[in-house]
């Protein structure tokens, strides 16, 4: 699998459509999901996902497989593209204001209710925090990989994740 991927990366480096299509087919959904976690407007998500691949293919010569995997490298581009888009639109995240946040009415400890509250709480996180949760709990990446993808140190990242968990715990806990 890794061999095929490297071959296809080489093919894409030669400017051949076959390589591009393989990489888009393999990583398109992954990138779309990461962008979707950060960008609130669903209409922008596909456009930005396209931009991620355009940028990646234009800088394919810079990709070094010894430094990071292609997925990690691509996620880093996606993270930066989404952040730049948010900045250019003047969109920051909704602040996580625990006083303003009103969780949905919960009559009991039902798991579905809890999930709904958690989902709402995640909506109120900053885009970077949502990206962190996505990479950690959906993609299952290690903190080291996420640190590479978000271009931050692993230590502060672990602290940040802990703080997010505490906030969410307060918001959904009863």
């Amino acid at each position: 699998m890794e061999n095929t991927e490297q071959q296809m990366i080489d093919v894409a480096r030669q400017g051949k459509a076959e390589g591009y299509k393989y990489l888009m087919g393999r990583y398109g959904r992954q990138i779309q999901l990461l962008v979707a976690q950060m960008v609130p407007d669903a209409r922008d998500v596909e456009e930005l996902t396209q931009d991620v691949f355009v940028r990646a293919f234009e800088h394919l010569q810079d990709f070094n497989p010894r430094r990071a995997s292609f997925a990690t490298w691509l996620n880093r581009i996606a993270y930066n593209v989404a952040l730049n888009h948010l900045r250019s639109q003047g969109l920051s995240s909704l602040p996580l204001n625990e006083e303003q946040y009103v969780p949905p009415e919960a009559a009991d400890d039902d798991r579905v209710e809890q999930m709904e509250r958690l989902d709402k709480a995640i909506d109120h996180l900053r885009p970077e925090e949502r990206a962190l949760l996505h990479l950690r709990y959906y993609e299952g990446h290690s903190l080291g990989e996420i640190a590479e993808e978000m271009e931050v140190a692993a230590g502060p990242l672990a602290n940040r994740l802990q703080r997010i968990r505490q906030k969410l715990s307060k918001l959904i806990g009863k």
Partner: protein
Amino acid sequence: MMKIADNEQDKLLQDAMRRRAERVPSLSDDFAESVMAKMKVRRRSSRRTIFLWAGSVAAALLVGFFLFVNRPEEQPVVAQKAEVQTEQEVPAEKPIKTEPENIQCQVAQHPVPSPSTSTVKSVNSACLVEQPDVPCPDEAQETPLEEVQLAAETEAEDCPTDDISDMPDQLLMVAAQIRDIRSRGERLDREIALLMED
């Protein structure tokens, strides 16, 4: 407030993130084609930018080459400087008549200061490099101011100022102007000194 156990929270977060991912619609069928089209457009625009830059550089080089080829025949800068210095050292009977003494003589003969006098002097000094001698001091006493002005204006009209091919003369004229300005400054200094003495 009950605290949720870490393991339970991890599981909840995993479920929550999975559900959020499931809500995201899949990419459109023509996603790959759209990316390829975008790349083509960007390549075209970047090529256009490169062509524009290359064109601008080529045009600048051509203009530079044209100016270099059509530059006026001129002496080396060292030779020009030497020439200017030599002319500065030339005594009063040489063709250059912009010495402070000469100008002072003219002013002395026509004590009423008028704007036209200074005009005459500046124009005259600019062109005096190749002009005949201005009569001074005895001849000047016999020459009325109007005639001097008229002669100076005529000389000024004849003065070649726009001829680029005559660069050494232009340099000499600039040098003469500088000397003229300097002499006027010196004259003013002397006048001020006289006034102070009075």
